[in-house]
């Protein structure tokens, strides 16, 4: 193993322990690790944005020797306008234009995206014959339909939760609570395996206590 690798493994082990020490309380080791993490990750993304976005998505496209594209120049112009903030208040207001553009596009694109994937598709999936299959299937179908219905009733803002309507909203909260509990309990185990990966590194690659 080369010295860079050995050094790297010791460094990585020190960082691992430094971050874990936060569980005890904030301390100088965590603080050092945190500062290095913030700085290096900011640098990492800075570099990645430069090469993956600016170089590949703009430079290589716009200056393609065979068929140069025009579309990336729109992004370039928006980006330059964004940087006007660096050059004083006189022209800084220009940076609102690319923001307005991005906000408008985001609102437009995601409005359709969510309407389709979260509303249309989910409603389509809810519309299913209920009384088919075994008794168990029927119970399951009824529960899904009733749960979706009551859950949505809970989200009504313009009607007071009273009477039958309030009752449905309450059942809706119950369904939401079961959903939260189940998804939580469900995730616990896979979160444990994340730490196992680090322990495997510490005891295996670094200390070599396990084979």
């Amino acid at each position, binding site marked *: 193993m080369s010295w860079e690798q050995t050094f790297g493994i010791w460094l990585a082990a020190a960082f691992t322990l430094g971050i874990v020490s936060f569980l005890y309380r904030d301390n100088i080791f965590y603080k050092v690790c*945190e500062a290095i993490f913030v700085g290096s990750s900011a640098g990492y993304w800075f570099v990645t944005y430069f090469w993956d976005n600016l170089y590949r998505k703009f430079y290589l496209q716009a200056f393609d020797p065979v068929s140069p594209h025009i579309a990336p120049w729109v992004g370039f112009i928006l980006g330059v306008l964004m940087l006007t903030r660096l050059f004083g208040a006189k022209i800084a207001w220009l940076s609102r234009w690319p923001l307005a553009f991005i906000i408008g596009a985001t609102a437009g694109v995601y409005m359709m995206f969510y309407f389709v994937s979260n509303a249309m598709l989910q409603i389509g999936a809810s519309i299913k014959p209920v009384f088919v299959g075994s008794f168990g299937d029927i119970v399951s179908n009824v529960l899904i339909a009733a749960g979706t219905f009551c859950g949505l009733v809970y989200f009504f803002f313009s009607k007071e939760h009273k009477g039958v309507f309030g009752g449905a909203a309450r059942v809706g909260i119950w369904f939401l609570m079961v959903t939260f509990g189940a998804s939580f309990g469900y995730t616990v185990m896979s979160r444990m395996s994340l730490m196992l990966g680090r322990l495997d590194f510490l005891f295996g690659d670094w200390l070599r206590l396990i084979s």
Partner: protein
Amino acid sequence: MKVKAFFLISAFVLSGFVSGFAQESAEPIPVENDSLTVAETPAPATDVVAKDTPNDAGGSITVTWDLSPDDTTKKIVTKYVVMRAEEGSDDFKEIGSQVAGKRSVTDNEVVDGVAYIYKVLATREILQDDAIIEVLSSPSEPVGPAKSTAQWFNMSRLNIFIGIIILCGAIIYYITAARGGKSFYIRKIAGIVEVENAVGRATEMGKAIYYVPGINDMDDVQTLASLTILGKVAEIAAQNDTRIDVPVSRSMVMVTAKEIVKESYSRAGRPEAHQDDQVRYLTDDQFGYAAAIDGLFVREKPATVFLIGAFFAESLIMAETGNSIGAIQIAGTAQPSQLPFFVAACDYTLIGEEMFAASAYLSREPKLLGSLKGQDLGKAVFLFAIVIGIILESFGIPVSNLFKVQ
């Protein structure tokens, strides 16, 4: 109002039928075809049709056929090969193939406006020791000419079009009604009501407020929603003379948040209290950001923490640390997978739609409240559609296709 709702609902349901029929009317027209059977060679495919692929940007023709009578489990037909030539030429080239039992191939290599002729070869590959030793095939009659074109409206999305028109129409209707002076009842939403109390608590304790707007960039509507809420929270904080800190993980969010916080201070009449370093960038990295936020929480010990926006796995890392320093935490996200963690670790959680409603609710502007009322009407239409749909489906009338997305 009820009449209007009924009208909207029936329009919605009807529209689905319309779009359902629109799709069906595009049935292929059968083409005459003589079947010539040669010994050992499979019979050709029948009813071959080549036509422009609908609802696309052009450059595509779809070829469909009915299976060859020899396409059975006996494997006399092993595949179909589709050949194409320009009209007036006999130079047929293979453009695609399909395994036995399949009935269509999409040719994406055509030029718009050029007429093409197609034929389908029902093919039998005879294998020996995994190697093809003989290929027998019989061509269908050539069909065409077919031309590809681009469409200006995607008919298969008509149902979505009508759906979004109804929803947006309802929202805009109530916004306009509110402009005209109508006022609407909006119920109390626990988490949102607590926003003001939470800011008040920080004021009493003389400590700062931290507002974390999630880890996504400006290309997520959750971030936009979070920033509009930030505007209201910062205004209340400025009125109370309580410092609000906004550490962010995206540069564009930083730029926007700076504008918002500054504006909130001047709306609160305290522009002099605003400091430039209240909004600051940390790092674009998910866990780097979480590490930095954790550090800030334990060192600065804010009295109130807002975690509102798009969060992923880091949600619990932040919320647990916020909890450990005893801060009042109000969270909100439309990330269904992270809601359980916020519910478990925070004092109040704005669940999905509630987060989007928060800025309208906090502003108390009638126009914005009107949009909530419109949203509710949309919800009523959806609920109605689900109930009716389930009933119809249970009686064997298929309607779920009305919500199909292509």
